């Protein structure tokens, strides 16, 4: 169980190895605050979606032999869930909404959320394993996006070539990070 956690965190890191969530990764990692906000929002959505999709898969899709509907159902579940969360936060936690709320619509189309869910399903994990995997993956996501935001802030004022400023140098940095993570285990 611990091995699965560690694997999800480092070896099969959501961003650096599985390339999920790149759009949001590049988009929100320019400031430390944004990165953390995105990371936390993603974690909440993923953890609850993991449970929901597991239940739906186990008790509705499989018994009715309609696993081909997995893609459609899961994405709808995530979309609806994010919508509901957004409404709840907007109504009851106005402060939280102001700081985190803008990320929520982005999360619907975030490959990371959908990707982690799909991995759990394809690997046929039971509920506990799926939650452990999701937790590890989310922590891996937060870790990487946070470190990355710090690094980006550091090189913000560097004299980088105009054509490499922004995305290209960020991608290269991410690549170096990926190579280092690969050598940890």
């Amino acid at each position, binding site marked *: 169980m611990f091995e699965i956690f560690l694997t999800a965190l480092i070896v099969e890191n959501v961003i650096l190895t599985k390339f999920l969530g790149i759009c949001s990764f*590049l988009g929100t990692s320019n400031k430390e605050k944004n990165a953390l906000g995105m990371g936390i929002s993603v974690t909440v959505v993923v953890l609850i979606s993991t449970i929901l999709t597991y239940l739906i898969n186990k008790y509705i899709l499989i018994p009715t032999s309609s696993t081909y509907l997995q893609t459609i159902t899961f994405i709808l579940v995530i979309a609806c869930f994010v919508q509901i969360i957004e409404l709840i936060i907007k109504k009851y936690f106005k402060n939280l909404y102001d700081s985190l709320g803008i990320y929520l619509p982005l999360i619907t189309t975030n490959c990371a959320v959908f990707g982690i869910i799909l*991995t759990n399903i394809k690997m046929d994990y039971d509920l506990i394993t799926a939650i452990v995997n999701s937790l590890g993956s989310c922590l891996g996501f937060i870790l990487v996006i946070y470190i990355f935001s710090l690094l980006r802030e550091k090189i913000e004022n560097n004299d980088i*070539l105009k*054509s*490499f400023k922004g995305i290209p*140098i*960020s991608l*290269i940095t991410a690549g170096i990070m*990926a190579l280092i993570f690969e050598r940890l285990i």
Partner: protein
Amino acid sequence: MRKIYDFLFKENPVFVLVLGLCSVLAVTTTFEKSYTMGIVVLIILVLSNTIVSLIRKFVNTEIRIPVYIIIISTLVTIIEILLNKYSKPLYDAFGIYLPLIVVNCIILGRALSFASKNKVLPSIKDAFKSGIGYLVAISLFGLFREVLGSGKITIMNDISILTGYRFIIDVFNNEVLPNKLFLSSGGAFILLGLLIGVINAFNGGDE
């Protein structure tokens, strides 16, 4: 010549607009996987733009996003089923990145920003423009990665069940050692960063 370059690279969804990167980085370990993914995305893009444009007058602004997501995911599911039936090796090779096309920023992006506001024919043209750009980008990237990373070009292997041909080119014939770096995930990031930087320079980053 310049016109072709502009069409392909000036507003390329992958290299310039930086969209849809997840699939570009993930499945480009062989040339074959790259161009097949490109074709799949192109098909889905065109179909989704068409449908979205056709029904654009009947859809309320509030429920736009869920409706479009349903359309795109249905299309993706159809392709999934077809691929699973006709070319299992390719289906397995794509893994989770096939269903992930649903959240590919390019498809939903074009649907929301263009097809929902324009007539059918321009929408189809727009889809083709983005789709071909994506196809060229991902194929080129896959070509680089495979040649540099394993010294081969796989033109047809996993889908050989369908077409009956198997076609792998050995580019260097063991004379130049392939650099494993490019097949790894870090290498993919770095190569993409370098490529985008170079294309930026060509596109007018230079003073």
